């Protein structure tokens, strides 16, 4: 059976600093799947992710043509439609960057921050969700006794898991992950892969990865970004 489509791009062109990253690309991403995006370094994989949460708009010298539509609540929405609420989009489309980017705040506040921005929740609810997400990201055991110390003192791998926990707390429908396990050892990376397989049940995951064995282990679909186009490379049976 054909899986439902979550994200659809049509004639998507994207350039950064005058360099074309995508050229008239139309592609669909299936709902509740892990799609791996591979391709040579510098081909623009990370930049492509930014077109799906409109984050490129905060970066100078970028331009985009074409449309991106996402299926929220049963119907497709053009996320570039004028007046589309971009903050809501970014809550529904979570992102984990390649280089861990904890804010200069305590560990607890980093994870709670997206909920505090959203507002309207009690402290108890937030606390419970922070713990839940830190557990999911396999970080709780290492930090539960120092939640209020600075997140910048964590190691690279811990920061990466902190950022994963922070992206999970809004329960996004789409998760954009840019090499989320690059700073992790084998055992922790395996735990995160397990988490992704678990999350897949109610989340669409796009994963940029350089690790071929990781891609073959967990991805349902593999897409290659090459010379400005996305090409479907293979699907799991």
């Amino acid at each position, binding site marked *: 059976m054909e899986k439902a489509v979550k994200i659809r791009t049509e004639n998507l062109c994207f350039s950064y600093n005058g360099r074309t990253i995508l050229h008239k690309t139309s592609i669909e991403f299936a709902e509740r799947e892990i799609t791996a995006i591979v391709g040579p370094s510098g081909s623009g994989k990370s930049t492509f992710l930014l077109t799906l*949460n409109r*984050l490129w708009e*905060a*970066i100078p010298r970028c331009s985009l043509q074409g449309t991106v539509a996402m299926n929220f609540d049963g119907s497709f929405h053009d996320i570039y439609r004028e007046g589309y609420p971009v*903050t*809501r989009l*970014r*809550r529904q489309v*979570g*992102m984990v*960057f390649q*280089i861990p*980017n904890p*804010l*200069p*705040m*305590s560990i*607890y*506040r980093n994870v*709670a*921050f*997206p909920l505090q*921005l*959203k507002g309207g929740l009690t402290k108890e609810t937030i606390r419970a969700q922070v713990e839940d997400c830190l557990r999911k990201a396999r970080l709780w055991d290492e930090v539960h006794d120092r939640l*209020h110390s*600075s997140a910048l003192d964590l190691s690279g791998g811990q920061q990466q898991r902190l950022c994963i926990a*922070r*992206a999970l707390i*809004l329960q996004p429908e789409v998760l954009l992950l840019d090499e989320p396990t690059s700073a992790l050892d084998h055992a922790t990376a395996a735990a995160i892969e397990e988490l992704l397989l678990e999350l897949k049940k109610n989340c669409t995951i796009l994963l940029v990865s350089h690790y071929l064995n990781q891609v073959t282990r967990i991805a349902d679909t593999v897409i290659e970004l090459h010379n400005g186009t996305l090409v479907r490379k293979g699907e799991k049976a």
Partner: protein
Amino acid sequence: MGEVRRLQEAGVLVFSWLCGVLLLGAVIAVIGYLFVHGWRSISLSLIFGATPPLDALLMKRHVFNGLFPAVVGTLSLIVLSVCWAIPIGMASGIYLAEYAGAGTKAFLNLFFDILAGLPSIVVGLFGFSAAIFLNRLFPGSIHPCLLISSIALAFLVLPYIIRTTQMALEGLPLSARLTALSLGASKLQNITHVLLPQSLSGIVSGVILAIGRCAEDTAVIMLTGVVASAGVPRSLFSHYEALPFYIYYISSQYTDREELATGYGAAIILLCICMVLFLTAFVIKRQVSYHALYRA
């Protein structure tokens, strides 16, 4: 080749050291000179004259032959001017760094550079003309006073605060800008919750420059309301005394060495006031950034 390069490296190091020592030496020489000449005159009676200090502080009795009114005048002048300048300056800096388009930005940058280059006497003249204009508009009720001086001084120090706010915000790396946005922050939330708290150090350095400038400036206040003897200012609309003006006045009109020594004493007090205000700015900065970033 290796020998030449080694000599170059050593040369640069020695030169840097010498420059550092020269600067430090100059600061120590100035402050030392002040203390050598002024420490003898420093006493409670220099500030409070013959009035008991507690009575003067509680405003029960006037101080006639002491610096107390000038200390109060200078303090109120600095606090008022900085209070006007901080919100306006920070808002302009935020606008320039985060909202302005390229054209507006170039235009406003030029405009603020011109403002920064205005001699203080010109700002003073402007304040003076404003006072005259207001006096015509509301006869008898407005004349050169604390309020007009503080507003004119605020104009003088606005460029510092605008520039440092703008620079601090623009200096933040792109990654710091994108983080909160990717988590669903609006542009304003990103500025208030993440970017401003991270730029506080830069902004505070601008505030410190502004405090120093307000404390030392004589040209502006001479034209806009300071007088040699007025007592503690009773309201925003009254004349006032100020330490820099007192120092200027004493150094040009002194009759004996002792009177000159009180001028040095006043200079030491002015330095101490600046130190206290700098420390206050640092403490406020630490508290604000702690509350903005680390409080649960």
